[in-house]
């Protein structure tokens, strides 16, 4: 533990990194069963899903903290080493954001009281390979944890499929939501029957028989409800959650230009972000490093119609990918070498919507 903690100090102080993964990594190397040992006699809640993990984890920690001291990996270090680092801090309650593919390992060792599943859609396919592959892992995991309560948004058929294997579950519906990857039933492989926003497969998988039902709303609103329901499993009282905080957006001032930065990392998060664009001026930053997804083909799954007739500047390592995609849709854009140069083109006092890839977003807002 001491060596592991020391490595975090080295990483943070000497290497100027966030210091959130190195101690856990060292600890897991020295002691592979660390996740299990550190979770003993503690109340652990895990959050996973394609979009909204970090912000929902923050919200859930707030909910849980009314019960007692709570620690959380609020920086988004969501692999097993990030989990291990967080577990090194003492507290009765632990709320962890966990990567979709790492959930099996972390949950089978940490034996959580609650697993909250938000949503699942195409993302980083170079790493996830297939959406169904991730859903199958969740499904298998749910079957092996009879003591855990699985909470999830079953308007997403992949979440419903995972929950269907759980002994204890709370399936929540917000009245339905169309899913881009929902043409095939994840449970039986048949063509899924959709009636507008609701699905009902002949095998029984459906969102029309939820355990709890709420009004429809934005992704941020859904996640705030889900956080409160997950908290209620351990007896935490629901709290008012500011939905704006769940949006994963930050407002920053660049020499008088007010930029609203939003994280966009896959078709689902892009579409959610594009709906919120309100400024005449827009900057799009596209990168394709590992965490962004090294392939950019999915940009063609998004309609950028809301950007028509706005001033659009594209930048980032893969600016050309987005520039050509917009071009084919008949939307003009200007290329800029860097975000700094892009933002300097606007007059002070104006506001700009900035939609940024994962690595670009963290470069701008800081981890």
């Amino acid at each position: 533990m001491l060596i592991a903690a020391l490595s975090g100090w080295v990483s943070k102080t000497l290497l100027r990194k966030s210091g959130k993964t190195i101690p856990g990594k060292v600890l897991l190397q020295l002691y592979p069963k660390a996740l299990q040992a550190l979770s003993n006699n503690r109340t652990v809640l895990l959050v996973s899903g394609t979009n909204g993990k970090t912000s929902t984890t923050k919200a859930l920690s707030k909910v849980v903290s009314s019960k007692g001291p709570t620690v959380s990996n609020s920086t988004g270090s969501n692999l097993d080493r990030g989990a291990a680092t967080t577990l090194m801090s003492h507290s009765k309650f632990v709320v962890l954001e966990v990567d979709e593919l790492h959930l099996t390992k972390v949950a089978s060792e940490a034996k959580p009281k609650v697993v909250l599943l938000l949503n699942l859609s195409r993302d980083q396919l170079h790493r996830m390979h297939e959406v169904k592959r991730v859903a199958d892992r969740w499904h298998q995991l749910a079957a092996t944890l009879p003591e855990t309560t699985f909470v999830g948004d079953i308007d997403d058929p992949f979440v419903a499929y995972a929950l269907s294997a759980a002994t204890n579950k709370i399936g929540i519906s917000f009245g339905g939501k169309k899913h881009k990857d929902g043409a095939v039933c994840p449970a039986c492989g048949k063509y899924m029957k959709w009636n507008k926003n609701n699905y009902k497969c002949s095998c029984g998988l459906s969102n029309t028989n939820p355990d709890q039902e709420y009004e429809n709303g934005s992704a941020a609103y859904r996640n705030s409800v889900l956080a409160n329901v997950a908290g209620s499993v351990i007896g935490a009282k629901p709290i008012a959650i500011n939905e704006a905080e769940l949006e994963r957006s930050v407002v920053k001032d660049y020499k008088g230009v007010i930029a609203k930065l939003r994280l966009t990392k896959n078709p689902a998060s892009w579409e959610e972000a594009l709906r919120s664009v309100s400024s005449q001026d827009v900057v799009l930053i596209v990168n394709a490093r590992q965490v962004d997804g090294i392939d950019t083909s999915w940009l063609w799954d998004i309609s950028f119609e809301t950007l028509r007739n706005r001033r659009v500047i594209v930048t980032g390592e893969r600016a050309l990918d987005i520039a050509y995609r917009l071009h084919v849709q008949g939307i003009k854009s200007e290329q800029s070498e860097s975000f700094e140069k892009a933002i300097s083109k606007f007059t002070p006092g104006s506001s700009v919507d900035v939609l940024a890839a994962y690595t670009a977003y963290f470069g701008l807002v800081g981890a």
Partner: protein
Amino acid sequence: MSRINIVRIHNELLGTYGDQGNAEVLVFRGKFHGITGNIIDVGYNDPLPTNGDIYLLGGAEDSAQLLSLEAMQRDREVLDLVIERGAVILAVCAGFQIIGNSFGANGKEVTGLGLLDVTTTPGDKRFVGDVRIKSTNLSIDLTGFENHSGKTVLGSNATPFGKVESGYGNGDGKYDGAVSGNIFGTYMHGPILARNPEFADLLLTRATGRKYAQITDPLASQYATWRRKVIK
């Protein structure tokens, strides 16, 4: 001004890897040549239209791939008919496997449509990354992105779509895809026609039987040239 019908087959099933953009690029490039492209989206329950000039299939996950195959088998004679009259088919990844003799999905060996003389077996390694190939049909290199675990072997009635310069292609690192007449199969996403607009032009030429003058679209050229340069 000529008109062509671009049939996007089962995008709801074969749209997981961004290949739907191929249809949009064909329409876009067509405009420069004076061709009006009309995209027809075909759903799982829809009959396959007989009036297509270009038929497109994309990449998919196993269960979706099987459903798409099942739906196309219902309209098998339509496919034979349109191939007979020279329609163009571009099939990517799972779509490429579907139009071959056989492939593996969900742990089973499945008989394909047999439009291309290729056989695919599932491998235990996933081939993921950028690809660059020397095209059989064009004098330029083509680039794309592959994400599959199938190993595809060509029979005597198909020639490779290209020779792999970088990446895995059909799984052997030597060749990618297959061609027979106007039927093209490849593992390259990107979408392939966005990354390689010259290939889109070739498909338009094949579909209409006309030769077209070279297009000046600086952004398209900049994009294609850059991808060729960075994929070593």
